[in-house]
């Protein structure tokens, strides 16, 4: 009896297109990843506005202060503090900025405040910043899409 010989060659799929695509996806996600998000406090509900646009150029140095609905102020990953305790944080950041050659008056203070916080508190925070010679203030809001 005659037996048919089995074809024992290993079939290999061509993986090149898949790898190409995967690398392209990785490159895409790497490009859009934004590490500056670390400064943002995600639990905040920012007010909405139709007419704001993201700033065209970043300021030379910025301090982002997050104010939650309870009025506590959070800076980067530090523990949230009351308004009275915000001065050391500001002084430390002003010190860092001066090492980069940025004067206090040129530092941009970005305030990300919860939509339900008392506006007076935001104003007091700005006053506290102003006492440390910080002069440029931006109130950050979410862009509202129609």
């Amino acid at each position, binding site marked *: 009896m005659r037996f048919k010989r089995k074809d024992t060659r290993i079939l290999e799929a061509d*993986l090149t297109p*898949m*790898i190409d695509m*995967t*690398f392209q*996806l*990785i490159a895409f*996600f*790497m490009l*859009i*990843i934004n590490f500056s*998000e670390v400064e943002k406090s995600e639990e905040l509900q*920012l*007010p*909405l*506005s*139709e*007419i*704001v*646009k*993201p*700033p065209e150029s970043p300021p030379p140095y910025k301090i982002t202060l997050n104010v939650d609905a309870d009025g506590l102020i959070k800076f980067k990953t530090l523990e949230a503090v009351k308004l009275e305790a915000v001065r050391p944080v500001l002084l430390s950041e002003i010190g860092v900025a001066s090492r980069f050659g940025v004067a206090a008056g040129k530092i941009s203070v*970005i305030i*990300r*405040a*919860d*939509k*339900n*916080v*008392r*506006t*007076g*508190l*935001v*104003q*007091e925070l*700005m*006053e506290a910043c*102003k006492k440390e010679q910080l*002069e*440029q*203030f*931006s*109130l*950050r*809001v*979410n*862009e*509202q*899409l*129609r």
Partner: protein
Amino acid sequence: MKIRGYDKKYDEIKLQMTPMIDIVFQLLVFFIMTYKVTAMEGDYNIIMPAAASEPTMTEEILDDVIQVKLTAGDDRYLASIQVTLGAREETFAGVSSPDKAARQPAFDGLHNFVLGVVGGNKDPATASEIEAEIEIDYDLRYEDAISAIEAVSGYKRDDGQIVKLIEKIKFRNPG
């Protein structure tokens, strides 16, 4: 003629792709999982007035400074907006309630006032030289303060173009 080495069989060199693909997929999964779709954020630039010891313009009534006073209701939502420009003074009342539509007439009143002063036919990209000075009740919810700032700052036309009205916005010192 027999060429030496001609018959030699070379081993086919194969790259091991499996570990690379594993790593690549892990990277891909990481980036996909950490990707967040978030709304874009933008800024309103605010000028704080000079320190209280220095003379401020708030006490005098100037023709190029619109003075806006936001009053909060019992539930800390906006109750009314008082606007003063020179001898003109108007008050726009809303209904202090969590429903934004009930408060909207006050913001619309403020916006129309500013539009009437600044003029709607100006170059959309350039803001007016007129200033706005805003005095806000301490307890007012921040979102209403931002809505008032938006009302004086500009508006979005139907074609999507943003028309700037007033850029120089000051907060009055908190009482």
